[in-house]
C-alpha cells in the first residue's frame, strides 16, 4: 500500500511540474487558483485540525493580505516588502481578534471571525477613497524578481505552488514538534491538555496567527497575479468555501487541505460547465445556486463516508 501511495505521490508531483509545459493558459491559470486556495486552506487546516478551532474569516485575512500588499506597493513600497508588511498586518489583526476571544471558553473565536468576515467586506466597500470601494483597486505595480518582471500564469504557478509546498512542509515540521503535539492534544481534549500544563490559549493563538499568515500570503500572491482586486473575492462565501476545502480534504493531514482545494476548484469548474451546458438559457445566478446545492451534496457524502476527509481516507493513519 505504501509503495502504491508513493508511486501516486510521485505521479502527482510529476504532473504538477508538467502542467505549465502544456502551454495551456486555462489549465495553468486554474492551477494557480488551486494553489492560492490551497495555501489559505493549509493555514486553516492548522487551526481546525491542530487546535480544534474554526475561523470564518479566512477570506478576510486573504483580503487583508491582498489589499495591504496592493496599497503598500501602490504607495511606492518594494512589492516584496509590501508582502512582508501585509503579512505582519494580518498577524497583528489575528492577535487582536484572537487574544480576547480565545481567553473565553466556548466558540467565541468562531463568532468573532464570523463578524470579522462580514464587516471586512463592508469596510472595503465603504472606505472607497482608500480601497476604491466596490469598483476595486488596481493602481499598483507588478511583482519583480531582480530585473525580471513576474507576469502571466507560469511564474505565478511556480511561486504559488512553491509557497503551498513550503506551507505543507512547515505544517509537517510543526506537527512533529512539541508545539504541534501540544496543539493536537488541545484538539483531542482541551480540558485534558490544560490539565497536564499545556498553555491552551497561547497554542491556540499561535495556530490562529499561522492560519492568518498563510491566508495573507495567499492574498498577496492573488493581488499580484490578477493585478486588480475587489471586495467580492474576499467575501464571507469564500471563507465558507475554504472551510469546505479543509473538511473535504481532511484537516488532520498536512496534505488534506491541498487535496480539498484541488477537488473543490476542479469540481467547481466542472459544475459550472455542466450547469451552462444543461441549462443554457438559465441565468448565471441560478446556475450558481445549483452549484451550491451540488457542493452541499458532495460535502454531506464526504462527511458521512469519509469523516477524515479524502486525504485522510487515502493516506490512512499517519504515524507521526
Amino acid at each position: 500500500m505504501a509503495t502504491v501511495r508513493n508511486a501516486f505521490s510521485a505521479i502527482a508531483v510529476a504532473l504538477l511540474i508538467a502542467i505549465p509545459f502544456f502551454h495551456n493558459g486555462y489549465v495553468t491559470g486554474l492551477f494557480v487558483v488551486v494553489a492560492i486556495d490551497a495555501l489559505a486552506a493549509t493555514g486553516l487546516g492548522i487551526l481546525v485540525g491542530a487546535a480544534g478551532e474554526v475561523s470564518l474569516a479566512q477570506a478576510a485575512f486573504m483580503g487583508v493580505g491582498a489589499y495591504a500588499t496592493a496599497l503598500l506597493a501602490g504607495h511606492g513600497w518594494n512589492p516584496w516588502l509590501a508582502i512582508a508588511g501585509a503579512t505582519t498586518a494580518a498577524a497583528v489583526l489575528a492577535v487582536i481578534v484572537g487574544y480576547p476571544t480565545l481567553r473565553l471558553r466556548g466558540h467565541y473565536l468562531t463568532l468573532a471571525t464570523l463578524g470579522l468576515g462580514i464587516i471586512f467586506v463592508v469596510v472595503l466597500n465603504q472606505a472607497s477613497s482608500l480601497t476604491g470601494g466596490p469598483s476595486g483597486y488596481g493602481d499598483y505595480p507588478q511583482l519583480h524578481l531582480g530585473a525580471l518582471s513576474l507576469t502571466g500564469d507560469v511564474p505565478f504557478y511556480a511561486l504559488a505552488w512553491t509557497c503551498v509546498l513550503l506551507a505543507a512542509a512547515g505544517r509537517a515540521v510543526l506537527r512533529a514538534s512539541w508545539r504541534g503535539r501540544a496543539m493536537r492534544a488541545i484538539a483531542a481534549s482541551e480540558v485534558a491538555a490544560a490539565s497536564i500544563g499545556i498553555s491552551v490559549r497561547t497554542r491556540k493563538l499561535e495556530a490562529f496567527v499561522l492560519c492568518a499568515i498563510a491566508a495573507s500570503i495567499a492574498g498577496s500572491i492573488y493581488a499580484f497575479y490578477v493585478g486588480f482586486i475587489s471586495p467580492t473575492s474576499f467575501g464571507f462565501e469564500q471563507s465558507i468555501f475554504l472551510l469546505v476545502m479543509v473538511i473535504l480534504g481532511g484537516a488532520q493531514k498536512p496534505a488534506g487541505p491541498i487535496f480539498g482545494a484541488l477537488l473543490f476548484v476542479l469540481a467547481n469548474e466542472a459544475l459550472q460547465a455542466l450547469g451552462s451546458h444543461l441549462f443554457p438559457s438559465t441565468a448565471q445566478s441560478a446556475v450558481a445556486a445549483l452549484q451550491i446545492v451540488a457542493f452541499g451534496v458532495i460535502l454531506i457524502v464526504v462527511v458521512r463516508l469519509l469523516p477524515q476527509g479524502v486525504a485522510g481516507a487515502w493516506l490512512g493513519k499517519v504515524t507521526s
Partner: protein
Amino acid sequence: MSAALLEIHAARKRFGGVAAVDGVSFDVRHGEFVSLIGPNGAGKTSVFNLITSAYVPDSGEIRLEGHALAGMTISAIARLGVARTFQTLQVFGGMRAIDNVVAALEARGVHTAQAYDQARQLLAEAGLAGQEQAQAQDLSFGQQRLLELARALATKPKLLLLDEPASGLSRIEVAALIRQLRRLRASGLTILMIEHDLRTVMAESDRVVVLHRGMTLATGAPAEVQQNPDVVAAYLGESDERPRRTVSSDRRQLLAVEDLVTYRGDVRALDGATLDVHEGELLAIVGANGAGKSTLLGTLAGLYAPRSGRITYQGQPIHGLSAEQVVRRGIALVPERRHVFEDLTVARNLEVGAYSRRGKSAAELDLVYTLFPRLKERTRQRAGTLSGGEQQMLAIGRGLLAKPSLLLLDEPSLGLAPRVVAEIFDALDAVRRDGTTIVLVEQNALAALPLADRFAVIERGRVASTGNAADLASDEGLAAAYLGKGEPEALPIS
C-alpha cells in the same frame, strides 16, 4: 504529620438551582493517600473540578502549599503540581500512546529526545510496555485508564487526583493499578482518589473524606469512617433484607429465544442461546464479563442481526427486524452507559422516548416523575450535567415513555453507589408491578437478585441454566462459578 499540601475551606458551587458543592472543607497533608467517597451526585468530581479550576468556585477557598488558587487557569494549576485523571476517559485520540505522555513531559519543558525516553519508562511502569506506538483510542478501556495515569505522572505532580481509576477495569487490571498506587505512595506522592470500590478505598487510604449532597459528612481514618453511623446511612442506605421472590410457573410466555447465534465482528458472541421470558416477570441475566449478556439484549432489541436462530415475541417472529420496528412492537432497551442526550434537557430527553409512537401525555411524564422524583426537580437541566445515577434514571424514564410491554436494561447499576442502585431497583419493582415485563442484565448479580423473579446464567454465549432467583442465591457453587465472587461489592464497609 507534616503540614497540609491542599486545603479546601467552605467551597461552594451552584449550577442553576442545584448546589453541586455546598460547603466542602478538608485538607490533604504531604505524602498522604486520601480517598473521597460518597453516593452518586455527592459532588466528588465537582470538587476535583474546583481544585483544578475547571470550575470557578462561587465562594470558599482552595490553597495549595498555602497559596490561594483562585483565578488561576487550569494549566497554571497543573504547572504548580496538580495532576488528574478523568472519570470519563480523556486520552488524546489521534495521537500515539507515547505522544500522549510526551506532550505532558514537554509541557513542563523536557526536551523532546529525553521526553521520549522518559515516556517509554512511564508507560512501562504503568504496564503499557509494547503499546507505545498504538493510537491512544485503539487501546482497551483499562489501558486508556492506565495511559491517563502515566500522562498525569509525566507532569511530575505534587498532588495526584484520581477520578475512579478502577472503574471499568478487569480484576487483573485493578490488582496492577493497586500495586502501582502503592509504589507511588511509597515514593512520597500525595494522592487524592475518588473511588466506588470501597474495598480498595478502605485498604489503601490513610484517611477517607465522605461527601454527601455536596457537603463534607465525615473525615477520618478508614476504620473511624466505617463505624460512623451517618456514613453508613448515607452511603449504603438500608441493607436489603427482603426475601428473594419465588414465582408460580403458570405465567404466559411473552418472548421465546431459540438457538440464537450473533456475531460481533469476528467473535461468535452468542452461540446458540435459548431462553423464555414470561409475562410480568423480572428476569435477571447474569454471567461473567464477555459472556454475551449485552449481545443478547442487543439482538433482542434489533441492534445486532442474528446469524441464525429465532426470536418470537407475542407469538410473532421478530428476528431480523430493525431496532425501530422492534421498538414499535413494544420492546424498549435502556443501553449500557445510559446514552442520554447530554445537550437536551431532562424533559426533552423524556419526550424523545415517546417518539416511536408519535405522542406523549403529561400523565405519562408524571408517571416517570413519580418513579424518579429527582428528575422532576431537574426537568429544565441539561442531561449532561446530571450525576451518573440521575442519568440512569433518565435513561430508564426515556425507555418507559416508549410504553414498552418488555423493558430491557443493560447494567443499570454500573458505576453507581449502592444507595442509588437501591433507588433505581425500587423503581423497577414498581414498573414490574404495573405489568411491564423486565429483562435485566447485571454483572453485580447479587444486587439484582432480591428484585428478580427468575434468573438466567449466560456462559460463553449460551444460557447455561435458568431457575427461580431464590434457587440461585442458595446455590453457592453456582454463584461462585458464574458470578466470580461470593459477596456483593458493598459489604466491606459494614
